[in-house]
């Protein structure tokens, strides 16, 4: 998956899982605030992303994520690392 495909798939699953309007998601928007994530919701975020990418995000991965753009970049890196084996 290239980054455009990752963004498209991630946005679709986040809209479905967290029941937010697609218009609220933008690269510069705050991920936690936009999706109203509490500590339990991060578990569901990991499940959702695994279902579209096969990649499992860990606690460490979220340390540097503030915006959706940060999120896409981290996810892209993990997808590339997985595909390179």
């Amino acid at each position, binding site marked *: 998956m290239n980054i455009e495909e990752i963004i498209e798939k991630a946005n679709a699953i986040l809209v479905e*899982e967290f*029941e937010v309007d697609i218009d609220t998601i933008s690269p510069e928007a705050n991920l936690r605030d936009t999706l*109203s994530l*509490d500590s*339990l*919701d991060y578990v569901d975020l990991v*499940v959702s992303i695994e279902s579209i990418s096969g990649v*499992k995000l860990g606690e460490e991965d979220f340390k540097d994520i503030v915006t959706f753009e940060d999120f896409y970049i981290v996810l892209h890196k993990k997808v590339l690392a997985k595909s390179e084996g």
Partner: protein
Amino acid sequence: MEGFIHNINNRVVITGMGIHSCIGTSLEEVSDSLMNGKSGIILEEERKTFGYQSGLTGSVPMPNLKKDLSRRERISMGEESYYAYASAMQALKQANIDPSFREDREVGIIYGNDSTAKSVKEAMDIMREKNDTALIGSGSIFRSMNSTITMNLSTILKLRGINYTISGACASGSHSIGQAYILIKQGLQDCIICGGAQETNMFAFSSFDGLGVFAPDNQDPTKACRPFDKNRNGLVPSGGGATLILESLDSALSRGANIIAEVVGYGFSSNGGHISTPNIDGPSMAMKRAIFQSNISLNEIKYVNAHATSTPVGDGNEAQAIASIFGGEHPFVSSTKSMTGHECWMAGASEVIYSILMMHNGFIAPNINFETPDEQTKKINLVTKTKKESFDVFLSNSFGFGGTNSALVIKKYV
């Protein structure tokens, strides 16, 4: 100490009721179904494909709660919690208990539930596929615990009183009313949400079907469940949610609540015998205790809502127990399970609601599909066609696996 209640012999009244069942999803619809002897039983072919011996089931619609509850709230709720919530909101509305009341007063919850089969199954499906607990999702634990209903409703409704689930098999709903009654009577609480809910999906009843005790589906689904009939040949699984608001009389009067009925007796017992085969002495003891506590004479109890599920031994034993206790009084008897099927964990609560609807509307719902009595069932005064009858007191029986028994005496409030 401020906030503690000292009155220890409160009268306990019902100020709200809600129902979500296979014979209706409002008190009005259910009352009409009871009056007309309407069955809620269908044949679900999917069950046969899945491997059930009988595909008969109560047909209960799934409430759509998307507009009422947030994603975070819904994700922790399985089917039984959906049913419980739907009925609880009706009951709270009827009781005129709004969020500000729940904020000002200490409202509790005691609810009957004894399975979360679908939620457990779904979690284990993920584990088998992914072998990773981190991929089960955050709602699973809260959907899978037996206390799922009380943990969800107490959170959503922001309750601060007593809070636990009763798992007493098919007497769970009845015991929940009984336990709430005791706590309010003793002055430990003055308002408790109680009831019972039962999931209806095909995962919930597969092991029960495996015992071969469900009515065969080679017959008209609406005629399959025939409690007390000589040719009864098994129960029909069903479910939904039934909620009652129990309150001390003082509390109800002080806020001008509409008082629906009064709980006057709760009896319980354990058979001390077989895990699934009922006896006569255990249920008899529960009924005697409830009647004794009510301080009401036998001839005042005009109606008995029987537990009878349409099984050969259970119905026969209950008929003998009722006949023995009431002697020459012959109260009217019917099993509403003939229309609803066996609502299991919910039944003890729903059947109190069904009986109150009858008491308020001056009729006794029929034990449909009854044609011929046997040696035991000919001893009771069975109502087989809707009977116009005014009555002020009834007894409601609920018995369950493991020999748990519960009986409640409910009286018109005067």
